[in-house]
């Protein structure tokens, strides 16, 4: 019998096309050579590695699944693999690409005017313009229908007032996709961050996603021209369709984080000798490692199936909810277990698990908390809304 890849027990790699495999390998190599050598330090210093943006753009990772406007036009599985490899590095890197691609470029592509697409998308694909996505508000992210930020007409313009909270890339961004209540329901606006009355402040003392920028946005009578309103969508389905794209990618990301943790823990427990035998020779340790491989395998199969459904145009939001819930929970639990199996070493940034573990505390909260996704599945099963 040949031996199996411990991080891919079901040879999922064989299910990929040659192009998908090459895409994964190329991103993996970028992460190994450029991100991993610096990322723990970035986490420690609480900074996003902006120096990687030009290379991320050059590789074609920004807006990779969009057609035209300087984007690569890749399929959903390829986008998933990109997320997986980036998050094997750090959730902060993957968050940056998710926000730019799925939450900012996607709505311009899907709901924007031709002029908006031509103005923004090529520059965003090139990493010259960074976007952020403002949906969540201070009073409660899980209930976006209760939105307070509002925009009212003033001649040819709109006047925007309100605040957004927990906004990834907020202080890095040149444009913010802001969702606001209007007389015609919720609408999206492209707000240029150098507009008067716009302010972004970083949220400090985060213990999670430290290699990522998280900000608060304030709008004090910000004047937005009508030409910056996204014309092709009204209502909550605008932001929710963006989230559906991003969440799909997030189902893949944590697989990478979990693989990174298991990989390091397999090596650590094989090399460490306690009680005159390798740590990995204990039943108690093997049961834990085996259980991690089982959970990673299940997550891989879920995401691959979800990706194939997406590429066939048949992905259902409830399927995304189940996958986001399962896969983030899987990775968070594995990161905590690996942290523990590394003993004292596990509390330092020399080893990856504690960084992934802390990051995943954000990933389980943003893009719909675990509970919210469970309730989505519950509603699907019962037909009863329990939110």
């Amino acid at each position, binding site marked *: 019998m*040949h*031996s199996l890849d411990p991080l891919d027990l079901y040879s999922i790699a064989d299910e990929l096309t040659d192009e998908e495999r090459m*895409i994964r390998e190329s991103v993996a190599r970028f992460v190994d050579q450029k991100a991993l050598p610096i990322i723990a330090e970035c986490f420690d210093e609480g900074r996003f590695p902006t120096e990687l943006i030009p290379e991320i753009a050059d590789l074609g*990772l920004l807006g990779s699944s969009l057609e035209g406007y300087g984007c*690569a036009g*890749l399929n959903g599985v390829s986008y998933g693999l990109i997320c997986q490899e980036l998050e094997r590095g750090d959730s902060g890197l993957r968050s940056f690409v998710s926000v730019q691609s799925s939450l900012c470029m996607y709505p311009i592509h899907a709901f924007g005017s031709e002029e908006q697409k031509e103005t923004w998308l090529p520059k965003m694909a090139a990493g010259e313009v960074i976007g952020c996505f403002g949906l969540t508000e201070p009073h409660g992210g899980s209930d976006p229908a209760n939105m307070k930020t509002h925009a009212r007409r003033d001649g040819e313009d709109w006047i925007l007032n309100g605040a957004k909270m927990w906004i990834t890339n907020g202080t890095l961004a040149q444009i913010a996709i802001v969702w606001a209540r209007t007389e015609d329901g919720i609408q999206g606006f492209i707000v240029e961050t150098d507009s008067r009355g716009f302010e972004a402040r970083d949220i400090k003392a985060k213990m999670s996603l430290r290699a990522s920028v998280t900000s608060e946005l304030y709008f004090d009578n910000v004047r937005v021209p009508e030409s910056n309103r996204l014309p092709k969508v009204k209502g909550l389905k605008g932001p929710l369709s963006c989230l559906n794209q991003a969440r799909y990618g997030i189902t893949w990301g944590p697989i990478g984080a979990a693989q990174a943790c298991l990989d390091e823990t397999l090596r650590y427990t094989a090399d460490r000798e306690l009680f005159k035998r390798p740590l990995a020779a204990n039943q108690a340790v093997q049961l834990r490692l085996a259980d991690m491989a089982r959970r990673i395998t299940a997550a891989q199969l879920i995401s691959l199936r979800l990706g194939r459904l997406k590429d066939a145009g048949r992905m259902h939001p409830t399927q995304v909810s189940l996958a986001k819930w399962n896969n983030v929970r899987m990775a968070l639990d594995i990161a905590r277990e690996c942290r523990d199996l590394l003993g004292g070493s596990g509390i330092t940034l020399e080893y990856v698990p504690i960084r992934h573990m802390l990051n995943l505390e954000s990933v389980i909260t943003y893009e719909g908390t675990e509970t919210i996704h469970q309730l989505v599945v519950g509603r699907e099963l019962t037909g009863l809304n329990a939110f």
Partner: protein
Amino acid sequence: MKILVPIKRVVDYNVRVRVKSDGSGVETEGVKMSINPFDEIALEEALRIKEAGKAEEVIVCSIGSKDCQQQLRTGLAMGADRALHVLTDDEVQPLAAARALLKLVEKEDPKIVFLGKQAIDDDCNQTGQMLAALWQRPQATFASKVDLDGEIATVTREVDAGLETLEVDLPAVLTSDLRLNEPRFVKLPDIMKAKRKPLEEIALAELGVDAGPALETTAFEPPPKRAGGRMLESVQELVDELKNKGLL
């Protein structure tokens, strides 16, 4: 000017290689395979020469099973213009590879054949040299720097005593050393474009080359396990120990 870059499919350098349980070879099933890293460096250099306007076409080629086309596609995605695949399921040793490459050279008439200095699977370090002999053209191996000026290549080589600089007349065989360059990352849009670049398949037999092995491998075995270290009490004990073993 054309540059021909032969690339070999090998077990990825990150993989911990395992000997098959029956000792018949190295496990390759379910193992990540890649372009031999030295060949990738050679390809990178060829692409840079082309981008500097000193070559018109970069052709990648590989000899081996159908699976080699994965590596050829990667080469195309890096920027090669087209690919030649010499198809065979037999083991290809350096001499057979050099003979097959000579046929491709006769077909394509390149000014430079740029190979890796060795393949990381068998570490033979022979194919480039053998090709130069069969082709009866100059060779400059272990290149760590290459300058082209018309019909002459100036090649710096890292040798034990320092740096050696050679001038060779083109056409010539060059082989790359590790420090020649750092290969680029493959851009995702280029991966999609590579699908549409030409890849020509030629059976090894069609070239009239006999792959029949010149060398026979009798057994594979993993290196012996390292014996555990031993703690000594004093420097004196260490010196005695080294003397006992005849190392001092």
